[in-house]
């Protein structure tokens, strides 16, 4: 990579939600460690995928990075400015450059506002007067995301899920931000509509040079859209690498297991490949295992894993892994094994 500086640099970010109990006098009895010390960088115009299973802290990380949630500790630098230090007023102004798209197109749009109102809101909040007037700017945006500008005065419930997601995208790109956090933007959509939205996001990125943090649990979708991918488990980053590398040469046992768990839409390939089936469930993020958080399900765990937390370290150019015993000599994760052997871990 050339000497471009990251647009977003997150260091040791922590977000804990207190667990309280008791009646009148609330006592804090513990914490959900939703995000527990993550570091990542996002460069201009690229897509960083953030993947992991439900509850691993992806959404919390995405929201905290934009300071939609107040971090417990850590630092967030956006274009060199420490977001944690800026005042609420400055933050509102900075939001012009940082937007968010949500998973649920049904609940993220105000049902009583027209599409026109929804898409013009960012201009009004920021006091921006677009050249040519608001109405025509909104019409252009609607056209850009594949909506009919004549539907300016319609309400969200008159649109399908995919169209509502287009409304959310139009609102997010209205002020041409530099960064958009997309939280499961296609998870609620049918595959044919999902593909439409993924293509739209890719085109918009190309046109405007926006960087995405793309949060999702579907690893195929993430591979499709991301330049680099970070894998989370119980609030921590297990591995991060350029996406081709991560998918073909995963070094962390969890990444390996996660990739191997995805059924491939090709019957011959699917039925003749080697597969790792993890035992057990995810531990609770309020009481994560000591040492490596993956040790309760890892087939390679040794004593050291139960006492010492592995740090995220760089193993090769741009490839970081948090594991005491990273995988070596990996057979292609998605390869055709000679016989249909299942490897139960």
């Amino acid at each position, binding site marked *: 990579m050339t000497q471009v500086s990251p647009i977003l640099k997150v260091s040791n970010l922590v977000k804990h939600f207190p667990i309280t109990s008791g009646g009148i006098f609330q006592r804090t009895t513990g914490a959900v460690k939703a995000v527990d010390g993550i570091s990542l960088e996002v460069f201009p115009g690229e897509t960083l995928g953030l993947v992991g*299973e*439900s509850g691993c802290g992806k959404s919390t990380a995405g929201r905290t990075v934009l300071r939609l949630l107040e971090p417990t500790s850590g630092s967030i630098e956006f274009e060199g400015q420490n977001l944690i230090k800026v005042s609420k007023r400055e933050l509102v102004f900075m939001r012009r450059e940082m937007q968010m798209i949500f998973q649920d197109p049904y609940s993220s749009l105000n049902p009583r506002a027209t599409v026109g109102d929804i898409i013009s809101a960012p201009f009004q909040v920021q006091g921006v007067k677009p050249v040519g007037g608001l109405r025509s700017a909104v019409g252009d945006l609607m056209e850009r995301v594949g909506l009919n500008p004549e539907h300016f005065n319609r309400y969200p419930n008159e649109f*399908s899920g*995919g*169209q509502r997601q287009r409304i959310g995208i139009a609102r997010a790109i209205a002020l041409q931000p530099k960064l958009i956090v997309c939280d499961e933007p296609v998870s609620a959509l*049918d*595959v*044919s*509509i*999902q*593909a*439409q939205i*993924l*293509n739209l996001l890719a085109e918009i990125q190309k046109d405007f040079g926006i960087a995405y943090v793309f949060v999702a*649990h579907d*690893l*195929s*979708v993430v*591979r*499709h859209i991301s330049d680099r991918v970070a894998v989370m488990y119980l609030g921590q980053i297990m591995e991060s690498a350029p*996406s*081709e590398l991560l*998918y073909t040469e995963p070094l962390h046992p969890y990444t390996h*297991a*996660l*990739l*191997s*768990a*995805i*059924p*491939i*839409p*090709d*019957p*011959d*390939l*699917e*039925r003749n490949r080697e*597969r790792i*089936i*993890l*035992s057990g*469930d*995810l531990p609770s993020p309020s009481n994560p295992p000591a040492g490596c958080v993956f040790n309760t399900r890892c087939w390679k765990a040794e004593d050291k894993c139960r006492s010492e937390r592995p740090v995220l370290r760089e193993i090769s150019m741009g490839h970081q892994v948090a594991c005491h015993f990273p995988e070596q000599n990996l057979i292609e994760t*998605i390869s055709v094994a000679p016989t249909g052997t*299942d490897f139960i871990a």
Partner: protein
Amino acid sequence: MSETDEVLLSVRNLYVEFATDDGLVSAVNDLSYDLKRGKTLAIVGESGSGKSVSSMALMGLVAGMNAKVSGEVYFDGQQLIGADPESVRKLRGDRMAMIFQDPLSSLHPFFRIGDQLVEAVQVHHDIDKKQAQVRVKAMLERVGIPDVDQRMNEYPHQLSGGMRQRVMIGMSLINNPELLIADEPTTALDVTVQAQILELLKDLQKEFGTAIILITHDLGVVADMADEVVVMYGGSAVEHAPVREIFYEPAMPYTWGLIASIPQISAKNAHLDPIPGNPPSLINLPSGCVFAPRCAFKQLVGDDLCEHERPQLSLISLEHASRCHLTENQRTDIRRARLIGRQK
């Protein structure tokens, strides 16, 4: 004919309609298929295509003033549509069972796990509580619940999502049904847990010889599990074939679109080829091909036939049926030009 070749379930010309304020919803239109003992039939299609309603209907679970079910469903030779509801209810939970996406919808929140399963056994079998408990315990162990004695005394909310799904699978299989309908059984689960549950379903099917109707929108799950596949669109089957043929020789534009829409995990496909437009409204379905408004190939069919005449589901080879006016040559040319399916 060997026992495994025996047809267990035969669905013929199934229709389901709902009268609503907006008009008549044709949720299932002329659906027909056969399912053999011990085999898995996957039903795939987008949201609202009629997957769940068609399966509920054959279990006698579509009821209510506004619903009308017609057609024929033979379960082991017995016609279920229009049959005495009591006799259908006796089959349910015994010889045929169902699992849902959300286990909480079939597990009662206020009763202990163990008691619910014991009840499920005793409803259909005249055995005492002790015997039923032994059977339940064995089943829960079989589906991989740890610390069974303790878990049997717990309530559904005390279990993780994966464990609840195991309990529900155990409950549905407790009476060793011949038919299991699994409606998106793993959609709410994480991939690592999904892999566990699919493995379990396959093992249990081998062990008990259960026939499975697997409803899913995940083509990866289909590739893993199915013997045969029905692709549904707008309430009808638009293609029906053995699983390899669906993936390697898909025969009609909607199936092509579905396959081209999925990002592949095994290779980065540069550009997805989505199906334009949206799924149809089931009120006032078009009189021609239901897929015509979104179909990129209808111009190849002469005389605007696609707009005027609904194609029949017809055999294009021994075991492969599709509902489309394109000719065999046209299909072959398109598949070759667009690299759809496996290239010869």
